[in-house]
């Protein structure tokens, strides 16, 4: 593996990956609580749920997540980008504790600690697997002679 150092802009894109996904999931969860029970025999009700405000906001946030996620995958490994998505859960936990003053159990703090250590582990390593350069097909001497 070659050590690929990320630029501040690339770290900002990973930050967007972290924040947009959990906020989007939270909006989806809030939206689905307000939707009547969905049955497989009436799949159209699942499509109708997409147009409710919370689910629409969740989808907008998840589109932001997907755009930044695709950008990150174009210059980093999947196993490097994935922990960043989990790091967002920790940001939401911090916001709920310090901005919303909600109670956070010891188990949740332990979860935050484990995610932080895990992300730190990956972030210190290379972001991209080094691949051998593709072999260039040069015509052999015999082929050159035939020409």
């Amino acid at each position, binding site marked *: 593996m070659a050590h690929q150092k990320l630029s501040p802009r690339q770290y900002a894109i990973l930050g967007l990956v972290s924040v947009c996904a959990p906020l989007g999931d939270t909006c*989806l969860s809030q939206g689905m609580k307000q939707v009547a029970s969905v049955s497989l025999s009436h799949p159209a009700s699942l499509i109708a749920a997409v147009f409710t405000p919370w689910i629409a906001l969740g989808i907008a946030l998840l589109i932001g997540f997907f755009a930044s996620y695709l950008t990150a995958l174009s210059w980093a490994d999947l196993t490097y980008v994935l922990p960043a998505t989990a790091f967002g859960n920790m940001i939401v936990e911090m916001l709920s504790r310090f901005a919303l003053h909600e109670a956070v159990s010891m188990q949740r703090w332990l979860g935050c600690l484990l995610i932080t250590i895990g992300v730190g582990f990956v972030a210190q390593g290379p972001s991209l697997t080094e691949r051998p350069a593709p072999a260039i097909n040069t015509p052999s001497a015999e082929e050159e002679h035939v020409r």
Partner: protein
Amino acid sequence: MIAPASSVGFWPAAGMISAIILASSVGEILTAAAMKSVGDLDEIRAHSGLAGAIRAVLTCPLFFGGVSFLALAFFSLLYALNHLPLGLVAPASASLTLVTNAVGAKIFLKENVDRRRWVAAVLVCVGVYFLAH
């Protein structure tokens, strides 16, 4: 009326969560393969502008395969959230997907998943479980 979580048995719940994990993992691995074949989007945008970067992504067939499976995972998640509590669906699907993605990246994307990344995947997996359970 919202279906109570207790009305769903073990096997249907396991089936819903497995569907999310499977669709999500296949989608993410196909998407990652697509983006690797497209190349660095920042460089493409610098040369061809935003339209060029969007065109590069949209002309990659693997990308549509990935998006199809991610859409399937999304609707599976919506369906599961409608029948199961978030406290079960979120930790189980999020944490197990991390591990299946690491295995898939190693096998299909040939990523160098060294000991550092395995340890990180397991730590994040357990951390997500604690956080969302």
